[in-house]
């Protein structure tokens, strides 16, 4: 049912596109402030060592150096992402835990001097034994990385729904398999950066390339000891985040502390190599699953174990460990599910949240196993999915409610558009077609710190002269298009044109918003915007009703004019006053309707500033079991994809020839942006499937910290993508909208895995699928089949 939207569902160009197309959009490194110093970090060359001594005197004496910071200069406040696991210090206290761990920070007149000063700091390390593998880290006698974590277990998750072992026994088929992945990286084009300005009034303004100004604000306030009201975090344009930029970085903290110490602004950036050393990106996963089904294809039970290689600190890893299990509860009916997850500390850069969070590789193995089950049962893989797909309104075994779920429509759309029926089973050896599904939260149901806080708030100010509105939001535009979505929802709800909405975003001074992570902003910030716009509209119409002596219930604003339910609106006098007030203007309002411009002006004159306020917090969600919060969401977006591949049988090289994707975003606020997010998610999935891995040498150092050696897809690696947008009209979403950014990455890796299996008979158990690995499978299968 197509609603009569004015703006929603269109392809209006993004608000920020012209600035970005002309190079006038300012990113963190484009900002400068007079008198600023440059900061640089001293990082550990060892994976695990005690700091026995440190001599900063030569660095301090170097001409141009203004401050040298070590742990002894900082209050020993631990921080992190999940309050229950605050395990980081800004600068190493007593010991370092990975190659890259921050030991000291220097502020100097320029970068060259700061780096020279860093090289003059002498640190005496007492090397400790270290572990780079999570299984070794869990083993008896392994060096303990954090005192409070015996066995190096950062978090253990044990969940069971139903009775998995008993049900598995009654299944007709069971498929057991495993999937190993590698540490990966966000691969955003813009390295992190911070610019901290501590002023004479004791206020700290921190510009940061971040996805989550609010979380950064909290962390900086907590660590520096400044009250929240004196910490202002401002996000300039951000060159991609994808998860690793959703937490305060050592740059944020060191720049802030150095600025406070020196009284000067301090700028700090990461080099590309440092981005890799910092990580906070995709965990390394070891998944093992057994899926049981009946011979008619009904899925009955899942036994799932996962070990997550978490690196040296917790970061977002608690949530990751939970997501890895919880996001398998849907989109198929699965009445029995058992999950045992172990996130393990190792002496490597800390892993955190990255697009799709813990769900991506779990989904990859699950979908691959489904295809194997389909084989066992002689069923078409599409058929198997359709047989098990949930319907809207159903709840998963782990109590995630699918308030809307266009999964069936997505599957049918990609099957049709890709020519699945004709191609499946008909392609020659070396060519394959595979499909997969997935889903994701539209915003985490709970903030990362235990709180009753609203998740998104909005201040919508109507300009006194009535010409437009400004929406103030703390939400973070990081490229995904949230500013545009905010403007479109505000315009639609208020009844004015998109071009009359100005969005100011990304500053903690504007409003509280939890930021861009867990694919939340369209739904949550969107709701708050809608409410604020409706609030403003109501205030304007009440004033109009007051002045023109009519019943406000009969009034509305649409297309920039006030509409009535038929009651005539005598606004002649009001218009005359407006025209008199604007003598000299050449664009006086005309026509037989009272314009928004006039109505807003009238409201201001009558009542003062018109400000619409809006706020959103999800209702309590989820079950009562431990960890129930993670995975909950007011809504879930879902996706299906079909991939076609060609495998070079002699070299193992995999080329993805095409991807057909369908995503249920509830309602497409901006169709172009939904497609764009789908395409971007698929390109990241393709990269993670085929090319991407962070390698470490024996000392624990990242061996390939460059964009030449850590391979994200180039334009020549990306095939043509067909996008289908499905709209299931989510009841819990503003205008029916829910997420797209992370759900759309879920099917990509397994669709490729399944296509490779179709092409050559089986797919490797390990990612990425670089030529050597794929060739290994081809040759091994060739040997075992006696050829």
């Amino acid at each position: 049912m197509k609603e009569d939207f004015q703006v929603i569902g269109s392809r209006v160009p993004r608000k920020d596109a012209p600035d970005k197309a002309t190079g006038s959009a300012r990113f963190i490194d484009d900002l400068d402030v007079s008198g600023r110093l440059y900061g640089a970090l001293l990082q550990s060359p060892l994976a695990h060592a005690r700091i026995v001594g440190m001599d900063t005197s030569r660095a301090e004496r170097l001409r141009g150096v203004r401050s040298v910071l070590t742990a002894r200069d900082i209050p020993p406040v631990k921080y992190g992402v999940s309050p229950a696991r605050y395990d980081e210090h800004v600068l190493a206290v007593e010991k370092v835990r990975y190659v890259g761990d921050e030991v000291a920070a220097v502020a100097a007149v320029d970068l060259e001097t700061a780096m020279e000063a860093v090289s003059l700091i002498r640190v005496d390390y007492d090397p400790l034994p270290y572990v780079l593998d999570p299984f070794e880290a869990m083993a008896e006698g392994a060096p303990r990385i954090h005192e409070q974590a015996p066995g190096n277990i950062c978090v253990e998750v044990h969940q069971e729904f139903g009775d998995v072992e008993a049900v598995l026994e009654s299944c007709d088929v069971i498929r057991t398999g495993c999937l190993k992945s590698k540490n990966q990286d966000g691969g955003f084009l813009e390295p992190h950066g911070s610019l901290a300005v501590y002023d004479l009034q004791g206020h700290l303004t921190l510009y940061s390339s971040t996805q989550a100004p609010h979380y950064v604000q909290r962390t900086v306030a907590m660590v520096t000891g400044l009250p929240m009201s004196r910490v202002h975090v401002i996000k300039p344009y951000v060159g991609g985040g994808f998860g690793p930029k959703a937490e305060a970085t050592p740059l944020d903290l060191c720049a802030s502390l150095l600025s406070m110490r020196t009284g000067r602004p301090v700028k700090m950036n990461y080099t590309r190599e440092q981005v890799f050393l910092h990580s906070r990106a995709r965990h390394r996963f070891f998944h093992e699953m057994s899926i049981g089904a009946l011979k008619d294809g009904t899925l009955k039970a899942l036994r799932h174990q996962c070990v997550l290689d978490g690196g040296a600190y917790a970061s977002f890893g608690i949530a990751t460990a939970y997501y890895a299990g919880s996001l398998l509860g849907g989109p198929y009916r699965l009445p029995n599910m058992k999950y045992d997850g172990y996130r393990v500390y190792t002496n490597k850069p800390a892993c955190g949240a990255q697009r799709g969070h813990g769900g991506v590789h779990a989904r990859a193995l699950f979908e691959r196993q489904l295809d194997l089950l389909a084989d066992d049962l002689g069923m078409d893989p599409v058929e198997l999915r359709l047989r098990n797909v949930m319907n809207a309104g159903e709840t998963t075994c782990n109590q995630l409610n699918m308030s809307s779920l266009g999964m069936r429509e997505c599957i049918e759309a990609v099957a049709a558009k890709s020519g699945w029926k004709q191609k499946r089973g008909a392609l020659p050896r070396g060519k394959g077609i595979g499909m997969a599904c997935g889903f994701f939260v539209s915003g985490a149901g709970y903030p990362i710190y235990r709180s009753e806080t609203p998740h998104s708030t909005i201040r919508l100010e109507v300009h006194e002269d009535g010409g437009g509105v400004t929406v103030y939001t703390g939400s973070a535009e990081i490229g995904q298009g949230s500013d545009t979505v905010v403007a479109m929802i505000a315009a639609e709800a208020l009844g004015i044109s998109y071009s009359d909405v100005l969005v100011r975003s990304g500053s903690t001074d504007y409003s509280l918003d939890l930021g861009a992570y867990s694919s939340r902003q369209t739904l949550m910030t969107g709701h708050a915007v809608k409410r604020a716009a409706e609030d403003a509209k109501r205030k304007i119409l009440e004033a109009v009703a007051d002045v023109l002596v009519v019943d406000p219930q009969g009034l509305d604003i649409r297309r920039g004019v006030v509409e009535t339910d038929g009651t005539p609106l005598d606004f002649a006098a009001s218009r005359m006053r407006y025209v008199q007030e604007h003598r000299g203007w050449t664009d006086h309002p005309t026509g037989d309707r009272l314009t928004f411009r006039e109505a807003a002006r009238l409201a201001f004159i009558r009542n003062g500033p018109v400000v619409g306020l809006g706020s959103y917090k999800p209702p309590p969600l989820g079950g009562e079991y431990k960890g129930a919060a993670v995975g909950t969401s007011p809504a879930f977006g879902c996706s299906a994809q079909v991939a076609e591949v060609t495998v070079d049988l002699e070299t193992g090289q995999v080329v993805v020839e095409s991807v057909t994707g369908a995503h249920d975003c509830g309602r497409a606020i901006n169709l172009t942006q939904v497609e764009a997010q789908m395409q971007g998610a698929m390109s990241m999935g393709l990269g993670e499937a085929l090319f991407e891995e962070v390698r470490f040498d024996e000392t624990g150092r990242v061996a390939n910290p460059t964009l030449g050696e850590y391979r994200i897809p180039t334009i020549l690696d990306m095939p043509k993508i067909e996008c289908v947008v499905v709209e299931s009209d989510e009841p819990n979403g503003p205008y029916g909208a829910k997420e797209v950014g992370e759900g759309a990455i879920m099917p990509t890796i397994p669709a490729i895995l399944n296509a490779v299996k179709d092409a050559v008979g089986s797919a490797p158990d390990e990612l990425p699928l670089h030529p050597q690995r794929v060739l290994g499978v081809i040759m091994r299968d060739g040997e075992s089949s006696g050829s």
Partner: protein
Amino acid sequence: MLLPRFDYHMPMTLAEACSILETYGDEARVLAGGTDLLVDLKTGSIRAKHLVSLERLELSGVTQEQERIRIGSRSTVADLLSEDVVQRHLQPLMDGARSLGSPQIRNRATIGGNLCSARPAADLIPPLLVLDAEVYLSGPKGDRAMTLDAFILGPGRTALAPGEILEQIVVDLPRAAGGGAYLKLGVRRAMEIARVGVAVFLSLEEDGKTIRIARIALGAVGPRPIRALNAERVLTGSRADARTWEEAARTAVEHAAPRTCHEFKCKAVAVLTRRALEQAWRKAVGNGHA
């Protein structure tokens, strides 16, 4: 990323350039396109207090003199791709140039730089080896020439004597009924360093069926790109057919250094050699009928 500080010299003549290089010895480096050197300086894998820029020297351009093609060492990779003579006669070099880096890199990287950096996976070296290229060096003690094969000594090492500069690269105009190719195995389809590189040049007898000249060069499977002489011997005088390609491909693997070449790479050498031979042969047949 910051560059370290250095003195920058812009000599007006080759002799002046050689003289500066000789004066500063180990502390000086030639700067042509900079796509290798500047990266190395930023990462610290090379240290230089003096850069000697070639930008004022007339060292670019591709000219054909009767049966010889002369390529100035400062010709960029992009220049090579746009040269008619290279397009028509030097197919392996075209393939190598096309596969190198990115458009941006190709607009700066020079053929001289690619040879003097002498990376094991360099994309222009195997093609020039199968074209039997010679390098012309100019130095304080005069000029000399040698085969490219003799010029490349090991990873990052060439036969350049102190003060010497690579002036030009010379290849013989390949005979009619000749064809070549360069194939590269990477992971992505752009901006890749070869994991295995195979260049091939074939020229056929009048009958169009027998191989007169065969040259094969392998890159990225040893400390330096090398000619696969055993495989060439399999080809010379043999019939140009699938069995010959198979045998040559298998033999080529013998030249891959055992340390760098484990099973996967060895298989890739055989596969790429066979495919490059098939391509080169098709070109040779085409050229023979032209």
